[in-house]
């Protein structure tokens, strides 16, 4: 059990097309084709990334903007496919990349709970059973029949978090989603995440705040321009990262 991995990434490469202008219609495509201007400027968001997360570990992913952190999370969620290499997942995933990504603004909160549950693959009966629990956690009883488009981003995020974490997933993926809620709600979310961790959930966490990574995670992975700089124990990696940032500042 202890040796079992939850996420294994082997030599993953993610390629984007970074052509100066993206061609998304036939007319331009043929014009460029005739003029022989059809370029494919490739850009590697991740270059040969390999690491393995064992079950029950909590990994923080750190790095500057554009270093490929979100790309890595999307790769693990299955939203992106690797151009080369493999990604193997062992268990169920709850992606919290953007809370309430499946909400439809015209539907009421009540209807959106069922829709969002379905996006995560839960059926109607299951959602009915957990309906009260979700609304309790989000503290939104008063606004249930209001269209989501009238919600503030914090309220929508609360609802999104409540739905996404209704079942304890094997792997929880967080991309700085909690920054929108108010302080009390952030604490509440952190508590729920801690509960999940205790019962064995693996966590992958992206944040710019080194403090919160240190607090929540036991391992860390430092990405720089798509390359893994360092990975392993959270304190060592965080130290090296901060050291690097300081060096840069001096320059």
């Amino acid at each position, binding site marked *: 059990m202890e040796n079992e991995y939850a996420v294994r990434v082997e030599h993953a490469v993610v390629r984007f097309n970074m052509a100066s202008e993206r061609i998304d*219609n*036939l007319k331009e495509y043929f014009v460029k084709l005739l003029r022989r201007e059809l370029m494919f400027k490739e850009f590697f968001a991740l270059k040969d990334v390999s690491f393995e997360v064992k079950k029950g570990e909590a990994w923080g992913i750190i790095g500057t903007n554009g270093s490929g952190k979100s790309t890595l999370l999307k790769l693990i969620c299955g*939203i992106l496919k690797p151009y080369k290499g493999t990604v193997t997942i062992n268990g169920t*995933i709850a*992606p919290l*990349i953007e809370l309430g990504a*499946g909400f439809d603004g*015209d*539907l009421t909160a009540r209807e959106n709970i069922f*829709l969002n549950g379905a996006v995560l693959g839960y059926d109607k009966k299951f959602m009915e059973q957990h309906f009260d629990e979700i609304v309790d956690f989000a503290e939104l009883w008063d606004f249930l029949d209001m269209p989501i488009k009238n919600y503030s981003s914090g309220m929508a995020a609360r609802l999104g978090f409540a739905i996404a974490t209704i079942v304890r997933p094997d792997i929880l993926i967080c991309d700085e989603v909690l920054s929108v809620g108010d302080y009390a709600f952030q604490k509440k979310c952190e508590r729920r995440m801690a509960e999940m961790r205790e019962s064995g959930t693996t966590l992958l966490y992206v944040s710019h705040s080194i403090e919160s990574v240190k607090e929540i995670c036991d391992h860390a992975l430092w990405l720089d321009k798509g390359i893994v700089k360092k990975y392993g124990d959270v304190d060592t990696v965080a130290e090296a990262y901060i050291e690097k940032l300081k060096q840069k500042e001096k320059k």
Partner: protein
Amino acid sequence: MDKFMRRLAVFQHYRPLLSQLVVKDIKLKYRRSFLGYLWSILNPLMIMGIMVLVFSSMFRFDIQNYPVYLIIGQTIFNFVSEATNQAMWSITGNAALMKKTYVPKYIFTLSRVTSSFVNMIFALGAMLLVFIICRIHFSLNMLFIPVILIQVYIFSMGLGLFLAAGTVFFRDIQYIYSAFLTAWMYVTPIFYPISQLPENLQRCIKHFNPLYAYITQFRTIVLESMCPDMRLVVYGFVVAFLMMGFGTLVFMKSQDRFILYI
């Protein structure tokens, strides 16, 4: 085989999503209208009324039970047109969701075509009304109607998958397709009898326009109370499955690259 079973399991897992999306589409379509779902019936009736006026007083076609003839063609064509147009935007329109969480992408296309299909089922209410008013003889042959609808559904699904994938890479497919639809409408005998056309065009339509096969099956059942020509039924199914296979192939081959273009 193993891969197929896995795909099936994934589909099972996301079936609640499919039904939620269909319900959402239908709910939102009529949410802020006074007459609500009644519009699904009223709208085709109104359009049919106008077309009957236009074509029975301005151009005279020698067709018995013209309103029935017209509404059958109109309903089938409208479904194909609506379903494919909706399907075309099913991927690009759900870009926000697809960038944030993993959902099998075909679910969105499937849901759009299916909600258009449900709309058509409502529109059958309008058709029924016309049948009653025109004193159509109801026969057991009508039990065959669902078989026709299944053919059209499969065909539209295939075309929809192809268009959805194509639109991700080339957004101007919409203009080409809308011109194509107009042409398609005129080469489908919706409001005129096919015998009006020159011989070679007739042959062309019979061979290459599957909508002709679907509409004709329907009309044979209702207007002649006969079982449709089995050759037409087989042709209809073969074309539907070919289209489905083609659409699925194009969609599956390109779906991993969608994320880079939406």
